[in-house]
């Protein structure tokens, strides 16, 4: 007893002298033992510091430069060497950009296209995935296969014929010209169907015995348990539509119907640099905010995307 107690005090004393070990919750290439050796720790901290510095310089500094660039005056922007911190930070460029690009209108357009596209996509894709997963019609697998096959077709290749089709239907400069092609998304249907497949049959059958119709089953049984996948698909649909450039560039050509990306691209050539940067900051804020709040969903969707097919 005594010796055990003595050993424990001794151990505690040793631990006090040694720095706290780096906690390892999962094993990777470097073993916990190696990591916590004397040189292992030194190398680890050096690498961590380097990686933090490099990634901040590579990915955060450009954005810092963009935001501060928008706060500098035209004269300050022309200075060589440039100033790291704006001398007299002003938000004038933002007001100017708002006026010049008509950003209020562009943002409203973009938000309207994104939300409308989300509603259409969800209505179309959820009901299709539900039919393919739970109602299982004849030839369902053929239909699913044909939908998934469209994922193999590179989007740039069908861009021109799609444009010709939309133009023939008279959908140019019409939000439906953005929404309907977006709803034909095989990947959404694949993700939703795979999730619906995992919902136990008994749940659906119990509702059917209670006399619920197929629409009622979808609304009150399937959708409430499918929140995670609905979240992932929703966020991806909205963000993709917000970021999209090439298709709105072709379809929404009237200057009062452009999306923010297209609007900025059309005017950017003839505008002072700080005004452009202010426009870019405003255009970048919505998706970054979404990313900030829905990081988990977005990353979950991304890794689900890597095993598509």
């Amino acid at each position, binding site marked *: 007893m005594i010796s055990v107690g003595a050993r424990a005090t001794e151990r505690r004393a040793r631990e006090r002298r040694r720095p706290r070990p780096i906690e390892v919750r999962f094993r990777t290439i470097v073993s916990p033992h190696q990591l916590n050796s004397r040189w292992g720790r030194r190398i680890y901290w050096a690498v961590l510091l380097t*990686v933090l510095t490099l990634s901040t310089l590579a990915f955060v500094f450009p954005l810092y430069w963009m935001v501060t660039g928008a706060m500098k005056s035209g004269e300050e922007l022309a200075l060589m060497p440039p100033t790291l911190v704006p001398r007299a930070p002003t938000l004038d460029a933002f007001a100017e950009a708002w006026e010049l690009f008509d950003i209020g209108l562009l943002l409203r357009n973009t938000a309207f296209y994104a939300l409308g596209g989300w509603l259409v996509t969800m209505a179309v894709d959820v009901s*299709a995935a539900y039919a393919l997963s739970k109602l299982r019609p004849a030839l369902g697998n053929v*239909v699913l296969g044909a939908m998934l096959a469209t994922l*193999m077709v590179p989007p*740039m290749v069908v861009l021109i*014929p799609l444009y*010709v089709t939309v133009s023939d239907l008279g959908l140019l400069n019409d939000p439906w010209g953005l929404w309907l092609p977006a709803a034909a998304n095989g990947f959404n249907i694949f993700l939703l169907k795979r999730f619906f497949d995992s919902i136990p049959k008994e749940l659906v059958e119990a509702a059917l015995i209670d006399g619920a119709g197929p629409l009622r089953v979808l609304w009150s049984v399937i959708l409430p348990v499918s929140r995670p996948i609905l979240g992932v698909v929703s966020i991806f649909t909205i963000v993709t539509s917000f970021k999209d450039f090439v298709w709105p560039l072709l379809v929404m050509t009237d200057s009062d119907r452009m999306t923010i990306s*297209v609007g900025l*691209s059309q005017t950017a050539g003839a505008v002072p640099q700080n005004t452009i940067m202010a426009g870019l900051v405003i255009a970048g804020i919505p998706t970054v905010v979404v990313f900030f709040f829905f990081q988990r969903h977005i990353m979950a969707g991304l890794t689900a995307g890597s095993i598509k097919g």
Partner: protein
Amino acid sequence: MRVLKRNLTAYGFLCAALACFAVFAWYPMVREFVLSFQRTNLVDPPAWVGLDNFAAVVRDPAFGTAWLNTVAFTVLALVCGYAVPFVTALVLNELRHARGYLRFVVYLPVMLPPIVAVLLFRWFFDPGPGLFNQILGLFHLPGLAWLDSSSTALVSLVIVSTWMNMGSATLIYLAALQNIPPELYEAAELDGAGILARIRHVTIPQTRLILMLMLMLQIVATMQVFIEPYMLTGGGPENATVTVAYLMYQFAFTYGDGYGQAGALGMMLMLVLLVFAAFQLRLTRDEREVTA
């Protein structure tokens, strides 16, 4: 009767999606094929012109250059965009601190609308007060012309493209790395494998499928590059950055009523990309067998 009813309800739920796919996904594929043999201005009824479109496309002075540029862009983008994310993911997976921050930061550019990244970098590439030449100046290096010189323009586009796209590949690799069973590393270590040997004999074989799959995906994605040349260089200087997708856009919308030629060029691009897509399909199947 009940079977019929079930099928009817099912197709009722499916009809919206079937209509969308039919009009906006399946029909355009057929239309692409038909279009490449037609001349049309979208107003008058299209006329059949046989192989004229293909001949016109091949005769275009930028045709060969566009393919060379696309291949060069793809190869360069792979050198950066393929190795860099994998190495980044390997390192990030070893770190025990700031993991959330690093993941967030690496993926941040992917979340920005591409136009933001592209216009931001257009400013960085400015040979005068642009950030990149300022940084070179800090190290007393001569400034570059970046987008304005035919020798550096394509590389500049690769830099933008890598910056704004590498985040997703990195996170996908990171997820794959976390799926490697720790026992494999332990076993390798017991067999006396050093760190490099563990990467070679455990990490890479374990992530081989996802590595191959991402290679195919990235080839297909980068061969369609459009927004970078469209916004940054307009294909110049001296056609140094004309890519196939950009040339297609020009046929259709700049040269005037060249939808047929654009379709013909699209068909050629499709044939090339289908080879890679077929590879990808096979790999996905293999992967499903492995994971099943």
